[in-house]
């Protein structure tokens, strides 16, 4: 076994995706390139696992301070439990989605694969940076790097439609970051004199309650990656991207970086106790974040119900699920934080499986609509089986990890006596069932029906091997995490301690 210098684990985790990006950029032979990339990517889960062990044992502080950017604020990384949770998700799903993407890009004969994988790996690098950043400025730098590096992925097919979608993508994400998030960060710096993430927050007692609430609003809407309405518009439009990109964006990197940023801001900039106290002062207006996220949950679910295009449906489902995370967070209680973390984990694995399934279906049959899916389950049993597990997880039934997430949210809401939230969760579960169940029913129990774009008796089988194996592997994790959620339990329990 390789002897790792454990003090350099942060540096290793940041370098691994860059090495992979380098391979992708310079090696012209695709087999060698893809092989080396996958091999490199395998090192990341190992690294993160080591970090997890150290954090869990409490046997050392992993920290890396780079240069000072602004006097007093350095490019600074420090590992804490929230960051590890995000890093674990990114590390596992990077390997899985890399393997899947290789299958997809080859299966669809996409061009410019080298530059595609380069930006893919740079986006992973940026996510790891977000996960381990020790202050808001470092996080902000990597947050923006995610936006910039995923833009070429979203617009991979260079046609007019992607140009417009790309414009919305970069416009909304960079626009909100520059117009809302940056002022929020500067205000924070001026009020607190620091931007370091500290347990219990850095703003407690430094600013008035009104300003605290205003600042929270600036953060929530400034981080448009979390897609709280009305800054969600970029997400459905970004669906013009190739499906592995959608999977990466909407399950792992972009949206998770968004909610994760808000989570980190709430826990380490404001401090949950501080926020709970401040929100009490405002009576029922203090719960505005709860209402905003509840509105997003319901509205996005309703829109999802009207969508026939699979990727659009999944996009709106993502928006609603992300709002669930924010709602759990908006209770400003330790239980709410744990619930939010589990929701992030559950959604990440379930959504990536769903996008993988959609991509596989598209690759073999060019079908993109719900109404065309009749009978597809019989031809692609593994893919649709995995899809079913993911749907069960998102609906929140055992034996999938989504069950634990939903349990925690309701438990948290009951504990905080937020019965409004319980009702919203119940409604959202109903909606989830209403838009996922027909897909499963159609694919397994209906016969293939004639229609535009459907070739009857097109006896395609399963998708290419690489795609099926990665889909099934991710689905397996959903099941495993339900019976063995230990890793995330322990980490979530350590948040804010």
């Amino acid at each position, binding site marked *: 076994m390789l002897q790792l210098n454990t003090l350099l684990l942060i540096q290793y985790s940041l370098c691994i995706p860059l090495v992979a990006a380098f391979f992708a950029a310079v090696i012209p032979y695709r087999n060698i390139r893809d092989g080396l990339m996958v091999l490199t990517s395998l090192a990341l889960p190992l690294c993160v696992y080591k970090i997890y062990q150290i954090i869990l044992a409490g046997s050392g502080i992993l920290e890396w301070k*780079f240069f000072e950017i*602004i006097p007093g604020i350095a490019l600074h990384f420090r590992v804490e439990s929230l960051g590890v949770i995000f890093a674990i998700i990114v590390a596992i799903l990077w390997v899985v989605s890399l393997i899947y993407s290789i299958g997809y890009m080859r299966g669809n004969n996409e061009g410019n694969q080298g530059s595609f994988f380069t930006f893919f790996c740079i986006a992973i690098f940026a996510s790891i940076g977000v996960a381990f950043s020790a202050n808001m400025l470092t996080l902000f730098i990597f947050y*923006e790097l995610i936006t910039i590096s995923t833009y070429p992925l979203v617009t991979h097919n*260079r046609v*007019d439609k992607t140009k417009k979608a790309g414009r919305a993508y970069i416009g909304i994400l960079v626009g909100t970051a520059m117009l809302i998030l940056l002022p929020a960060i500067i205000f924070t710096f*001026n009020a607190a004199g620091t931007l370091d993430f500290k347990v219990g927050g850095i703003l407690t007692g430094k600013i008035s309650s009104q300003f605290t609430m205003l600042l929270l609003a600036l953060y929530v809407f400034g981080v448009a990656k979390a897609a709280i309405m009305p800054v969600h518009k970029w997400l459905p439009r970004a669906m013009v991207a190739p499906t592995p990109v959608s999977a990466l964006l909407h399950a792992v990197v972009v949206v998770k970086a968004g909610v994760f940023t808000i989570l980190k801001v709430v826990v380490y900039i404001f401090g949950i106790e501080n926020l709970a106290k401040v929100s009490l002062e405002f009576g029922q207006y203090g719960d505005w974040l709860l209402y905003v996220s509840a509105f997003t949950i319901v509205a996005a679910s309703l829109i999802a119900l009207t969508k026939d295009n699979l990727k659009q449906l999944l996009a709106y489902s993502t928006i609603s699920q992300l709002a669930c995370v924010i709602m759990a967070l908006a209770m400003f209680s330790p239980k709410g934080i744990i619930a939010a973390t589990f929701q992030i984990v559950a959604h990440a694995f379930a959504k990536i499986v769903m996008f993988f399934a959609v991509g596989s279906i598209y690759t073999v049959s060019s079908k993109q609509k719900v109404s065309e899916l009749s009978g597809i389950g019989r031809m692609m049993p593994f893919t649709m089986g995995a899809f079913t597990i993911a749907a069960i997880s998102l609906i929140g039934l055992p034996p999938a990890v989504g069950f634990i997430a939903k349990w925690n949210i309701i438990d948290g809401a009951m504990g905080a006596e937020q019965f409004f939230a319980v009702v919203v969760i119940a409604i959202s579960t109903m909606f989830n069932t209403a838009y996922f169940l027909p897909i499963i029913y159609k694919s397994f129990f209906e016969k293939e029906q004639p229609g535009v774009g459907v070739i009857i008796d097109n006896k395609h089988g399963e998708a290419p091997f690489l795609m099926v194996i990665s889909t099934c592997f991710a689905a397996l994790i959903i099941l495993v995490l339900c019976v063995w959620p230990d890793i995330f339990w322990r980490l979530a329990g350590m948040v804010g301690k």
Partner: protein
Amino acid sequence: MIFSANLPALQVLIPLIAAPICSLLSGRRIIWIFVALITFITFACSIAILSQVYTNGTISYPMGGWLAPFGIEYKIDSLSAMFLLLISGIASVTIIYAWDSVEKEISAAQQPFFYTAYLLCFAGMLGIVATNDIFNIYVFLEISSLATYALVAMGKDKRALIAAFEYLILGTIGATFILIAIGFVYAMTGSLNISDIAMRIKPVLGTMPVKMAIAFFTVGLALKIAIFPLHLWLANAYTNAPSFVSSFLAATTTKVGIYVLIRITYNMFGREFAYTSLPIGQILIILGLLGILVASVVAIMQDNIKKMLAYSSVAQVGYIILGIGLANIQGISASLLQIVFFSIAKAAMFMAAGAVLFSVKGVRLENFAGIGRRMPFTMTAFIISGLSMAGIPGTAGFVAKWYLLQATISAGMWHVFVVVIISSLLTLVYIWKVVEVAFFDRVDGSKGGINEAPLLMLVPMLGLALLSIVLGIYPGCITGYVAQVVTGLFGG
């Protein structure tokens, strides 16, 4: 140690003496090698001077042994050392770019004169920064301006002649104003040495001639700096000048004017008088804000990319004088950082535009169609520098923007804060317009193969783009030095 003791003089004299020699040379590659060598030596001088200033403090050098205030004194403090390094640094990078670019754009017969004009312009700028004598500043200003008019006029397009003529007229008016101001100051104090004037001017500060002097200085310099309503010469001059000239001038000329503005207001009239008793600060802030907004919007509407970059320069001048106008420590630090970071980014962007001109023979928006695939390195340099200008975190521009925003907060000017925030998005809009065309539109098939620019054009622009990132992550070397400069200015 004769060499190191005379560095302040050599700094200016080497390119100045090299200029006439250059006009006598023939054989174009030989000329280039000579000019490049001179530029590099000058750059080395700047580095040596900077390290001397950094360790030993301000250098005072009496020209010809005649002591100040009677003789001409060269005085190099940390502010001038920084500008010397900036000018000669940018010159060294752009001169590498000139190898291919000038060869293509300037006919062989004109090349000796072209490089002579360049060296004169270069020497003039260095002289302005090195000297401590206001009349000497005027002389060098004219040397560099006259050379600049000639450089602009050598653009391939006929419009370059008109642009140069416009520039000549407006530049001369500006220079005349400055001369009148110098006359007033001399009449009131009987001295031309800046340090000497600073002492003698105190008793007469409130008098009308001194107020007139500062007014004439400000307006005259505003013309040279291209502060918003007086910016008209800049757009055409930068657009039609040869690519090498555009990238060199965009990074240096206006910055030298700003240097003189800082020098005069802080070290001659005194900060108190200029920014507290007189409303120069407020005027600069208002003009800066208008400049940022108007020029950014005009830049968005341009189809000619060089013209777009020129208007973007006007907007950047707005940012810089905004910081000066705030007249607090963070404001002036922000301005100095912006001068450095914008110079780096703007030079790289003009080089990229020049590279497209080199390969596609046009710099209109439609000429950029499909460039992203054909000239990936050029576009990489363009995008990174553009992001730096827009102030995306991780690039040098972000650091400058952060300082500026902090300055507006500590001055309590929220309207300025809002404008700065919004305008960085406007920057992104015009950068992205180019990016979309370059990556989404297809190359017109009939034009045949478009190839990446030659190596010697790529290296300088990629180097500058890389510098934008490195300084965005490790700005400590510059911010630390700027802090020292500002303490000097505020008499710490």
